[in-house]
């Protein structure tokens, strides 16, 4: 599955969809593929303030526990409650399933994120390594 060009990406395999000051965050197809069957998502509390790079959520697959880092700084304003009952949505529709939405405090941090082309290059490099 190719990574949608309207999203931004992190090296840690999160995607970010920006709408005004709001940023929805999910995990990439590559991330869900390498995690395997996802069995639980620990979603953050609405209202929590998180700094860029801070652990905001945890995705648990059959194989491993993997943190989701906040790709930008801000406040958690929405979480995907459907993941509580159906964590496998992250496997099935990774780019249509957000984990949480942040209200950004430093939108300029978006400049440090990767484009889909840059992200795909990174994943390609990892595959060769």
């Amino acid at each position, binding site marked *: 599955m190719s990574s949608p060009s309207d999203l931004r990406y992190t090296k840690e395999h999160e995607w970010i969809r920006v709408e005004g000051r709001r940023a929805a965050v999910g995990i990439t197809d590559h991330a869900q593929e390498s995690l*395997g*069957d996802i*069995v*639980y998502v*620990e979603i953050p509390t609405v209202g929590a303030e998180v700094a860029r790079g801070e652990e905001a959520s*945890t995705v*648990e697959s*059959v*194989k491993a*526990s993997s943190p989701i880092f906040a790709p930008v700084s801000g406040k958690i304003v929405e979480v995907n409650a459907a993941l509580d009952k159906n964590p496998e949505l992250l*496997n099935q529709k990774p780019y249509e399933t957000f984990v949480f939405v942040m209200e950004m405090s430093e939108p300029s941090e978006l400049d440090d994120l990767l484009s889909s082309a840059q992200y795909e290059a990174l994943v390609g490099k990892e595959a060769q390594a």
Partner: protein
Amino acid sequence: MRTPLYDLYSTYPGVKIIDFAGWEMPLNFAAGIIAEHRRVREGAGLFDVSHMGELFLEGAGSAETLDWLVTNDVRGMEVGQAIYTPMCTPDGGTIDDLIIYRLGPERFMVVVNAANTAKDLAWMNVESRKVRPAALAATITDRSREIALLAFQGPKAEAWLSGLTATDLSKIRPFRFASGVLLSGVEATVARTGYTGEDGFELFVAAEEAARLWRTILDASGTLGALPCGLGARDSLRIEARLPLFGQELDGSIGPLEAGLASFVKMEKGEFCGRAALREQKERGLRRVLRGCEMIDRGVPRHGYIVYGDNSEIGVVTSGERSPTLDTFIGLVLVSREWSEIGTEIDIDFAGKRKRARIVKTPFYRRRRAEHEQSE
């Protein structure tokens, strides 16, 4: 290393191959670990476990030797019977856990964990000299590379496998086996053993016949719903059934009594390696024991997570998962005896975050037995 079935894996789109103790093994096929797990509970699944080692003890003194080496009772076995047993060091730690098949009065096949095959062979050779002088000792041969092992597990395994043979498989009772069974022309030793907590069979065949048997079973029963399964489902199934995995629930420092395997340690059978140490443990009382826990808070307890009771460290998680059958978060924990009673609440450290769990009865999952088994 690769099993004789390795070339077949790549014919399955979506197969995920991992390194397991130096073996390139399927973690899961296209269906994924959870779907494979469920299929084994509801229908049947086929596993390649050819990486397991097969060691043969043959000749006069074989029974006596094995009886010294392991904690369970070998001399009392009938030909055609299999037993599960730990094998211990003199200090009561575990070298490995095995299944022993009695092929003849003085002929045994010992199935060992893949990662331990070389270690076990060396250990058995050295220890067997303590039973009888070298010249009289049993011959111990590693036939792991000649023998492939398929596990066909699930409530439908007997019915679906029966379509391939004239042998009446219902006559093979749990922990019994039959040799020379023809499965669509492939000669196999068919044992009613497994590692899933489900009914099913383990099929020992010549390495060169393994691919044909794999395809035959899946062609015949795949239309009925059997799935090829990988090591991921094997692990999640055995956790629900509380079957120990060497390296997690058992190792050089975790003895069989601590792991809750007392029924496989026959103190009264006579002298065996580790007996004195195990007896001392038993008399003094065990310091720590293996228990099952269920998470009260949510999260998957994982191997190595530290367990706390009233803020002091009381043990460690050996295995854990979100149980596909029960849909709860379950774990196996090795904890201080004082914290081991059913119903006791404990805390598990999830990377700095304490989560609550409760000690519960195990196994987490017990299969429904068929009517003809009720009397057993």
